[in-house]
């Protein structure tokens, strides 16, 4: 297999324009002859489905959620970036592009990132036109704030509920199309496989989660916008149902999985409190605008934080990074928090936490000002921990949050399976080895509103797509395979619940494939994960049957895929003998404990091809060329 990224010719600032002009178009009357399947209705899938329907395509959209108003996207708190330069502080498309490439530690594709920055402004215009209530200033214009990894204020926000308001905007566009019949929406439908005809993606197999019915659906092209795979760690900030199944099943059918080891550990989450913990809660990065991170200077100091005087506190981010201070990128902030705790400066009952303190800003601007900006986050914190952050500093610790890796796509967002397109967090494209805050919402909406509507037309206009029906053997066969696999799991009737095994996997992943990795640990993970997989297929206990509402069966089927993905993540992390962004290999660090890249050998995206699952996936390399931004060591000092 040869990876062809299909990056258009020309200078980076002209590529998208040139490409839009040279792409083939489907004329308006012909669009209604094409059916497109969109799996996922988060920001990426919902915006794609609505826009494609507006253009005239027939869209069938699927989600395992009960409604397109629900998706993991809704939980995003902090904001969405754009290069509007409304605050007049020196922002530009080029600067957003530059910050994103640098923030990603030079492991993203320049052309894609530039295009992302270019369309970012259209996104804000679109959302405002839909009635998304972004925060405003007293003059009536839009307000901005700053986020990690940037020295300008380019983040648009809607209190601490930006993802919710953006998703409701997408939902409004989508229901409008559902009302016209151009989008047929299938709620509570789990996609369990893709169907290929002549090597091209032509459909999907789904299970109706209420009735258990397994059916297939055909189309001229398939889009996956199925989110990230952070829940492989069991504990993460992702919604409970987020999973890798759609991507993984596509991977097994030939879609390369790129950079699976690039996971983002978010520095500001509420620490784990017990073994019963089911998920972790993020405290938005926007808090680092006004909160100061510190630990006691003396290791093991367990005085009440309010009784520790300023000179006995170590504001370590401000000390180590004077110019970015508390706003260093996430990977840096997370690793430093871990380092402080490893050295014994951690606080709270588990000693795995650092303080995020708002006393200064409350003193400076008053409690009301703080509550206007962060009220819902403070309430959430109080609800979970029982502590009042207006009075005592928050305790925070890093947690798994986002996955930069995902299915490999070319410039047109098409995977290595022709006709199969991948959008949003599910693809690998724009964030390299580390995503900057407020850039995932931007990417999801860029992919869905402004990129795929163009590029999919180019694919369809090339023709060569014969008529297919779900009664064809290929589709019937695909349905049968899905059924058999579920029946096999159900028949085990062992003694371990799905959650028991998932927790074990999570522990292995966090321990050996988490915030800091090394050769020995990764090799250990490669021994342990296959054992857990065996355990699953021998001992898992799933009640009930296929033809009924059965949440344990849903979870089991997702865990089966996580177990395979986990192994690939460890393999990818082991092969990448460098540290970059969220991938920190302890063997490769500078004297100041910063990530040490190896540009000579690893300036590529690692795209893994499935090879029968015997532990020997094939590695393909997409060499990354940097024509615009020169590779330097990231410095936030």
């Amino acid at each position, binding site marked *: 297999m040869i990876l062809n990224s299909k990056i258009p010719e020309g200078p980076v600032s002209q590529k998208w324009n040139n490409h839009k002009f040279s792409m083939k178009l489907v004329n308006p009357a012909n669009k209604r002859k094409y059916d497109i399947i969109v799996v996922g209705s988060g920001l990426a899938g919902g915006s794609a489905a*609505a*826009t494609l329907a*507006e253009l005239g395509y027939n869209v069938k959209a699927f989600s395992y*959620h*009960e*409604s*397109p*108003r*629900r*998706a*993991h996207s*809704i*939980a995003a708190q902090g904001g969405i970036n754009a290069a509007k330069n409304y605050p007049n502080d020196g922002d530009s498309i080029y600067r957003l592009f530059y910050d994103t490439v640098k923030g990603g530690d030079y492991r993203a594709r320049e052309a894609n990132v530039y295009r992302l920055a270019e369309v970012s402004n259209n996104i804000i*215009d*679109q959302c*405002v*036109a*839909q*009635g998304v*209530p*972004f*925060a*405003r200033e*007293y*003059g*009536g*214009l*839009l307000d901005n704030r700053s986020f990690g990894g940037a020295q300008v204020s380019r983040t648009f926000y*809607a209190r601490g*509920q930006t*993802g919710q*308001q953006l998703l409701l905007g997408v*939902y*409004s*566009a989508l*229901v*409008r199309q*559902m*009302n016209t019949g151009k989008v047929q929406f299938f709620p509570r439908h789990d996609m369990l496989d893709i169907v290929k005809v002549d090597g091209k993606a032509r459909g999907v197999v789904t299970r109706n989660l209420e009735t258990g019915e397994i059916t297939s659906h055909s189309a001229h092209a398939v889009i996956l916008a199925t989110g990230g795979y952070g829940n492989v760690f069991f504990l993460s900030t992702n*919604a*409970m149902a987020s999973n890798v199944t759609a991507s993984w099943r596509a991977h097994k059918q030939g879609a390369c999985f790129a950079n699976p080891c690039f996971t983002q550990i978010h520095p500001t989450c509420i620490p784990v409190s*017990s073994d*019963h913990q*089911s998920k972790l*809660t993020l405290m938005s990065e926007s808090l680092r605008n006004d909160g100061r991170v510190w630990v006691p200077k003396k290791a093991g100091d367990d005085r009440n934080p309010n009784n520790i005087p300023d000179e006995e506190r170590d504001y370590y981010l401000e000390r180590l990074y004077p110019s970015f201070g508390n706003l260093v990128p996430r990977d840096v902030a997370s690793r430093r928090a871990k380092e402080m705790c490893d050295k014994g400066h951690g606080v709270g009952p588990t000693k795995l936490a650092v303080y995020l303190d708002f006393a200064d800003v409350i003193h400076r601007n008053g409690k009301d000002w703080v509550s206007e900006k962060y009220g819902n986050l403070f*309430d*959430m914190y109080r*609800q979970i921990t*029982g502590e009042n952050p207006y009075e005592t500093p928050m305790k925070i610790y890093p947690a798994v949050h986002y996955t930069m890796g995902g299915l490999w796509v070319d410039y047109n967002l098409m995977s290595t399976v022709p006709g199969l397109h991948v959008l949003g967090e599910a693809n690998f494209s724009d964030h390299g080895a580390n995503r900057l805050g407020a850039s995932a919402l931007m990417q999801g909406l860029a992919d869905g*509103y*402004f990129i795929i*509507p163009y590029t999919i037309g180019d694919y369809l206009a090339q023709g060569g797509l014969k008529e297919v029906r779900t009664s064809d053997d290929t589709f019937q066969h695909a349905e049968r395979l899905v059924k058999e696999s579920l029946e096999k799991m159900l028949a085990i009737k062992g003694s371990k*619940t799905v959650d*028991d095994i998932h927790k074990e996997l999570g522990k292995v992943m966090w321990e050996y494939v988490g915030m800091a990795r090394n050769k020995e640990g990764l090799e250990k993970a490669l021994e342990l994960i296959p054992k857990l997989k065996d355990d699953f297929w021998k001992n898992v*206990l799933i*009640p*009930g049957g296929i033809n009924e*509402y059965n*949440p*344990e069966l849903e979870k089991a089927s997702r865990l089966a895929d996580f177990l395979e993905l986990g192994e690939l993540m460890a393999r990818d992390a082991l092969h990448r003998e460098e540290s970059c962004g969220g991938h920190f290999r302890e063997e490769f660090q500078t004297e100041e404990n910063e990530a040490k890249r190896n540009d000579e050998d690893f300036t590529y995206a690692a795209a893994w091809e499935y090879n029968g699952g015997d532990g020997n996936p094939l590695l393909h390399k997409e060499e990354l060329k940097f024509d615009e931004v020169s590779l330097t060591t990231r410095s936030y000092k």
Partner: protein
Amino acid sequence: MRIIVQAWRQYDRNSEGNFESYPVDNVSEDMSFFEMLDMLNNQLLKDGKDPISFDHDCREGICGTCGIMINGRAHGPLKGVTTCQLHMRSFKDGDTLVIEPWRARAFPVIRDLVVDRSGFDRVMEAGGYVSVSTGGVPDANVIPILKDDADSAFDAAACIGCGACVAACKNSSAMLFVGAKVSQYALLPQGQVERKSRVKNMVGQMDVEGFGNCTNTSACEVECPKEISVENIARLNREFVKASF
């Protein structure tokens, strides 16, 4: 602590349901209510019984997926909190928790505590949007919006579509949910063009779905986890009257 869970068990839409009682031991205060149910379910599974089904996803009070009646209160005893944000420190050793699904004609039960809220989606389909297609819109700062209006629109837009208002109402009215959406757009310049048709169509669909009339008891506001104000219902009524002339 020890908690007695009395849960509604119902196999599917067509079967009759009944309550069953389960003791849960070793519940700690720091657990969330759902973590307590997770623990109970893990035990039920190991005992060869069917776990209790309930809907949930974000577990941080924002997605609107969860929703359980706990001792007759939608989302449990606390104000302004979803079921998933409830922690066991709100209960004490020996408490009995009677847990039921949302009860409303427009929300049929799918299994145990899981209900079908797709009626909400159909109400939204009838008009819960501004008719703009992707592209071709003006610059975002072309329309300045009074901060107060923007803030009020936001307060209404904060509805998570959980359905607690319907469940709390003895008439199963959806007026708070619909009022919140109609208000968001009525308060913003973007919503003006379709102001009249929107409210008529959404209210029409609300009736088709079988949601009842408003009883003016404000039970919905009390139980709404996002504290959506009944002022939105008053605005909905005004908008509806204005649209009819």
